[in-house]
């Protein structure tokens, strides 16, 4: 068939959009970079693996069940989530990862000519989905690494449907307090939806970190995102959700894809939810990792942004994409921050003690090799 008119079929905003290329599998990368093992510290995953109950479920899962469709609207899981979060089941909508839920919301509220407002240096998917849907993404620069209330408000107009706030922010780990969030909601008013992305909420151990869900009765224009990918270590199963008022979720449900969350994901999430022992263990792993990394950066005189989240940002005195390649050769995969508009920074996910120690050594070797004057030191990647 001659696809001569293919280009004419594609909307301009899709034509302009460049597809995201995810990283190849470990074995391919190891072969390319010549490393015998690869520690992924780029996706903010939980190195502990899923909570015990979820792991046990996965081990004993009856394969015969996969011939049947899952619950199309995740009914049992919604019931448990609603109970756990103190909302009603219709207030919860699940998706194939929080990423899919972002798309549900944008589709539900935006049409061409509308816009979304968010920060310039935050999780990219809000901006991406808006752009390839033909919706303008207006970006407010961060202020001192945090979301800037004034900048966001200045970009809001009558065609602004959604304001995305990543709280805490990926990749900076900064967050708005309850008071600050309330002040923002009051200033913004009820004419726009505010999406609070709380993908890392379970890591937060700060008294004035706001639980967005508790503010729903006061601000019915709020939508809260959460995910099982981060704290609950179910990233590979792809499951995330949103919570809003029933009025709002009744609308979002129209654009939500039914049956998109698979059986395994639903049941594993059901088993994992609310395991406080596991959450505590993860938090202490994160805290140890953050401390180790902060100490290493202090020694190397590298600025670092740490937080309660399971990642930290480090500023290097040379290119982050070069650092990425050199660290890959040593078997450590980090996230370069140029793509987040933070050139020269890398984001590192917290891992177990061994991996963190190995990473600290690799980082130290890297920094010395690029900053020491001796060409020999450079050539051999050591400090003389």
């Amino acid at each position: 068939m001659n696809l001569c008119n293919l280009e004419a079929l594609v909307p301009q905003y899709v034509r302009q959009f460049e597809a995201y290329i995810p990283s190849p599998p470990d074995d391919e990368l190891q072969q390319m970079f010549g490393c015998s093992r690869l520690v992924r510290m780029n996706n903010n995953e939980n190195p502990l693996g899923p909570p015990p109950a979820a792991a046990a479920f996965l081990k004993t899962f009856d394969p015969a069940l996969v011939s049947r469709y899952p619950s199309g609207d995740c009914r049992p899981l919604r019931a448990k989530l609603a109970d756990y979060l103190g909302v009603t089941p219709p207030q919860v909508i699940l998706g194939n990862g929080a990423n899919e839920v972002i798309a549900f919301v944008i589709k539900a509220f935006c049409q061409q000519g509308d816009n979304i407002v968010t920060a310039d240096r935050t999780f990219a998917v809000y901006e991406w989905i808006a752009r390839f849907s033909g919706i303008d993404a207006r970006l407010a620069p961060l202020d001192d690494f945090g979301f800037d209330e004034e900048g966001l408000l200045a970009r809001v107009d009558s065609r602004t449907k959604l304001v995305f706030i990543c709280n805490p922010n990926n990749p900076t780990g900064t967050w708005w307090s309850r008071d600050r969030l309330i002040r923002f909601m009051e200033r913004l008013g009820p004419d726009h939806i505010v999406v609070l992305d709380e993908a890392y909420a379970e890591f937060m151990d700060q008294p004035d970190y706001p639980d967005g869900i508790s503010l729903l009765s006061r601000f019915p224009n709020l939508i809260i995102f959460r995910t099982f990918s981060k704290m609950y270590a179910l990233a590979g199963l792809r499951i995330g959700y949103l919570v809003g008022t029933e009025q709002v979720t009744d609308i979002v449900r129209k654009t939500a894809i039914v049956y998109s969350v698979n059986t395994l994901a639903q049941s594993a999430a059901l088993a994992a939810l609310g395991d406080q022992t596991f959450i505590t263990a993860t938090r202490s792993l994160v805290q140890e990792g953050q401390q180790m990394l902060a100490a290493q950066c202090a020694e190397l005189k590298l600025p670092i942004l740490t937080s309660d989240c399971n990642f930290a940002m480090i500023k290097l005195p040379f290119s982050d994409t070069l650092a990425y390649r050199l660290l890959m050769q040593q078997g450590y995969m980090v996230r370069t921050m140029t793509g987040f508009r933070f050139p020269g920074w890398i984001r590192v996910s917290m891992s177990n003690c061994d991996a963190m120690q190995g990473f600290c050594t690799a980082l130290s070797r890297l920094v010395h090799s690029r900053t020491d004057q001796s060409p020999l030191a450079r050539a051999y990647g050591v400090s003389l």
Partner: protein
Amino acid sequence: MKLSVELVPERMPVVVGFAETAAKAAGLDASAAAMLALSTEELFLALCNSIPGAAITVRLHDRRYAADLLFQVPQPPDLRIFNITSRPDHDTEEGLAEMGLFLASRACDQFSIRQMALGGWEIMLRKERSYPAPVQQSQPYLAVQTWQLTTTPAPDAVKQFSTLIADCYAACQFPEEFTPPGRLLDKLASNEYGLILAQGQQGELAGGLIWHAGEGRIVECFGPYLAAPAEPEQLSIALCEKLTEQFGRSSRQGLVLYAPQQPPAAAGFEAAGSLAIPGGTIWTGYRMLAEEFGADAAVAAELMPFYTDWCSSMALARNIRSYHDDGETGNGLTLFATRLNRQIGMARLTPLLVGRDAEAVLEEHLHLLDQEQFSAIYCTVDTGRPFDALLAPHLLHNGFSPLMLIPWGGTGDLILLQRNGGKR
């Protein structure tokens, strides 16, 4: 402006008239418009011979600083006619069949041909506008202690910046022309170029960096040009970082920097080689924007030491295959795109197709460029296009040597070679 026309010689006056009128409307002066018309005549006749009767469209793309005449043809013409060295011969029947673009390309600044994604070919002739000579400003430039960066400078500031380049930097320190001010303003107005400017509190000029996002995955950058080049490391870093930030979340893979002096490592650029251009050298740097996952690369044995050295110093993950000439026909024939900068005598050849006639076609090009007094001649080979490797021995044999590596500069990595002198 667009013209649809059949490829028959009788239609030539219409096409030539269109080209001239459109070029003038786009602001080319009479002599430049006439040159473009002349090129059009040659090209049109060549096409009439190659694919007689075919329906084509001719379009003018006004780039402000230049006018592109674009010929879209539905099927591949005999590509040999597009080598700039093919001689036109109006006198004989056979000569007509070999009608070439010798004159066409001599009258133009850039000539290229590309296969379009959805079928058909597009041939481009570019003529640049001419501008009045820059006026020198003799007042001294001072270092500015605190500055702010802007990506949308006012026209007046742009003009000041162009004057600063003309005053403080030798022509050899910029492989592209950004002077006089009118040219820089027009380049910015084309939206292919951008300028990040640093200004003090009173708007006094501290420095700037120019970028050019053409087609492809690489953004070319020029600068930083500074009012007081001796001092401000921080300013260089800030300009380079701003630029990187600007393209960080884009589809571009990398930045190539042509710098009057090497910026500090914290600016994020890695040394990528240095180019000799008439009257001096330019430090070149590379900044990858994307995360590297590795790639396969096909490289001629002759370029292997250069390529492996650079891959190792730039920490590029490459599965390198040595590509041998086993007598294959490659792309069948050889075709170069050419980009000329007559002002400083620079020419860049890009192989579009490489076949068994590579040596002859290359030598014809070099002969012509020598005749035309081009003294800085570059050619690229692409490690993602295996047949390019067939060209490498002929390049080395003709006095080229590899100078610079641009990761992801083409389908794969681009090795830039420069001609040092005569044939070896």
